[in-house]
Each structure stands twice: as C-alpha cells, then as structure tokens.
C-alpha cells in the first residue's frame, strides 16, 4: 500500500509554489517601488516627469517583464501537451 502522505510530492509542491509566489510577488513589489519612485516624483516635480531616473524606469519594466514571463510559463506548464 502506498504511504498515506506522499511527502516528496507535497514538499515539491510547497517548494515550487513558494518559489513562484516569492519570485512573482517580489519582482512585482520591486517594480511597483521603482515605478512609484518615478511617478510620484513627476506628480510634485512637474516638468521633470521622472526623466532623471532612467535606471528606475528600466528596472521597473524589467521587473514587470519578469512577472509576465513567470505567469506565461505557468500557463504554458498547465496546458496538456
């Protein structure tokens, strides 16, 4: 008889989910923070409109792309092949 709890599978699901959750949410949070850095400034500073921080823009975009890629992979992974 198979063991009642398949700890290997359970552990695997836990680790994979945790990794996915942390990477996606973490990347999104970094992106949100960088974006806020740029956009919040443009609100007060007016004309500058975040132009002074190309690094923040690029970083934010990179983060969101990472999130999109992770989500895309998740869907691809689900579809029966």
């Amino acid at each position, binding site marked *: 008889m198979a063991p009642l709890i398949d700890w290997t599978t359970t552990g695997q699901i836990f680790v994979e989910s945790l990794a996915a959750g942390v990477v996606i949410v973490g990347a999104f949070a970094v992106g949100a923070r960088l974006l*806020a*850095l740029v956009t919040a400034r443009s609100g007060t500073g007016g004309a500058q409109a975040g132009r002074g921080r190309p690094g923040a823009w690029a970083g934010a975009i990179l983060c969101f792309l990472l*999130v999109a890629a992770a989500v895309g992979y998740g869907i691809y992974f689900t579809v029966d092949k």
Partner: protein
Amino acid sequence: MHNTLLLVIVIVVAVSFDFTNGFHDTANAMATSIATGALKPRVAVALSGVLNLVGAFLSVSVAATIASGILDASKVTLPIIFAGLLGAIAWNVATWWFGLPSSSSHALIGGVIGAGIVGAGWSAIEGSTILSKVVIPAVLSPFIAGIVAGVATFIAYRVSRSKDERRDENSKRTFRYGQLLSASLVSLAHGTNDAQKTMGIVTLALITDHHLPTDAKPPFWVIFMCGLAIASGTYLGGWRVIRTLGHRLTDIETPQGFAAETASAAVLLISTHGGAPLSTTQITTGSVLGSGLGRRAAGVRWGVAGQLVSAWILTIPAAACVAALIGLVTHNGNTVGIVVVTIVAAALLFAVWLKSRADPVNADNVNDVNAGKPARDAALSGAAA
C-alpha cells in the same frame, strides 16, 4: 428508452451542479479584487466567467481522477451519480446561503460517496484513495497556500512600503493592476480545475451507459458544455461568499490581494499538473488568511475562520448524507422516482432563490459590509433593532 431519459436527467443535473460550482466559487478568484476596488464587481465576474471557460479547455487530467478515484468504477450506476450530484448541489446552495466558502469539489466527492454506499455498498468505496488523494491534500493545501501567501505578503510590504506617503499610495495603485493579472490567473486555474470535475462525472455517466468506451476522455461537447455552465455560474456571482472572503475574514489591501491570488494560482496550477482534485476554495481561503497574517496591521477574524473550517469538515459527510437519503429513493433505478426527486429538488432550489431575493447580496452592495448581512450573521449578532 428509460435509460436515455435517465441519462439526460443526469447530464442536466451535472450541468446544474457545475453552475452552482461556478457561482459558489466566483469568490475564489475575485473576492479580494472586488474588496480592494481593483475591479468593479460586474467587470470582475464577467472577466472571471470568460477565463473559466477558457480554462476548461486547457487540461483534462483532473477529470480522470475524479471519475475513477472515488468509487469502484464497475459498480457505478446512473442513479448513484444522480443522487451524488443532488447531494452536492444541496450542500453548495446551503453554504452559499450562509456565505460560507466551502469546497464544491468536496461536496461532489461527498455526494458520490454517500450515494455509492447506499447504491453499491461500503465495498465500492475506495477508502484509501479517498484518504490519500482527497482528505489529506485537503488538510495540507490550505496551509501550503497560507504560508506562501503570508511570506509573499510580507515581502510585498517589505519591498514596496515607503515612508513617503505619496509613493506608498502609488505602489498600492500599481498593485491594483497586478491584481487584475493575478485574479485572472486564479480564474483560469479555477476553470481548468473545477470544470474538469463535472466533465469527469458526465464522462463517467456516458461510460456507465455504454456511450463511451471505459477509458474515454471527455468528448468535445462535454468540455464545452461544462465550461459554459461554470462560466455562466461564475458570471452570476456568488456575492454572499465574495463578501465573506473579501471583507469578513480579514481586511485586504491591494498588495495582500495580489500576494494571496498569486499564491493561490501557484499552488493550484502546480498541483493540478499532478491530477490532484484539490479544492480551489480551501486554497484561496488559506491564501487570504495567510495574507492577513503577513501584514501585521490587518488582523484575522479567527471566529470567521473557525466557521469556515467547521464547514469544511462537514462538507463531505453532509453532502454524503443528503446524497444517501436521495439514493434510498432512487437506487433501484426507478425512473419515476428520479423524475419526482428532480422536480422536488428544482422546486426547493427555486424557493431558496426566491427567499434570497428578500435579503439580497449583489454587485451593488457586496462591499457594503454593515448593511444587509447574510441572515445568519444578523441572527448571530442578535440584530439590534
């Protein structure tokens, strides 16, 4: 002739179950997005409905488990499936009435078990499979989802919080867009997961009645029909359950909503891949709770959480009992009995629906937590005035 009528009734009842599954579970994907205002209630249910339909087409690996894992397939009869489905519908409607997010999957499994015991005896029940594939994952999965959501929420706040209030507001707004994505993902996962359960049952009915070979996969029309039923149920929206999950369990902000939904989607998609018929409801509830713990200021209402857990424990036995009672009437395959039970059940459902309109929870008042609470709440708090 009689058998065809019976088969048609079973399919109609299965589709009805799928419909209740949809409206009961709208909350899973959309409750936190509706609560935080990331999506307008009506837009949220429409989006979720469409994605459920899409999701239904993505995979059929759970459909196989649900059909073959619970009962000895050779002993399954149409009346057993019929009684099992009705038991599940009864539990779904009852828990919706009280705004309890309980598992439609477990209701279905419980119903099939109860009907199976009456119709085919204890020996037909695959006890160890049920324990290892249903009960134990049911206990573990909300914890896994809760931990993932809690950690993700903690990180989300740790990273994005800013002393500058303006920036803080700004990143919360960004998380709102994130919620659009994460809620969509949960809807999709729900479609792949839950629509398959009814597909599995309909396929099983077709196999039992010798319209399909024993190891057949769900035919296209079954997939389409089930997808459509769950999508339209989702679009109708189980507003009572949405209110519970979005407001009563814990207070939710956009970063939490995003973290909770991402955690749910991750756990669901990763474990569905293995064909485990997990409960979307329990996973999302675990996530919402975890996200409440991850943000210290949020606070979890443990009383509500306790209510939910007791409903979960009751789900399988309660659905089993109702299904067993129905099974007593129908197990000899008497078509007249089945038609009568169907009509009575339809009348009862209609009555519940009429009654729910007296104290409605809908798209307009779902976020309005203090007014028009579900009847049980008012009764519990002694309803001043």
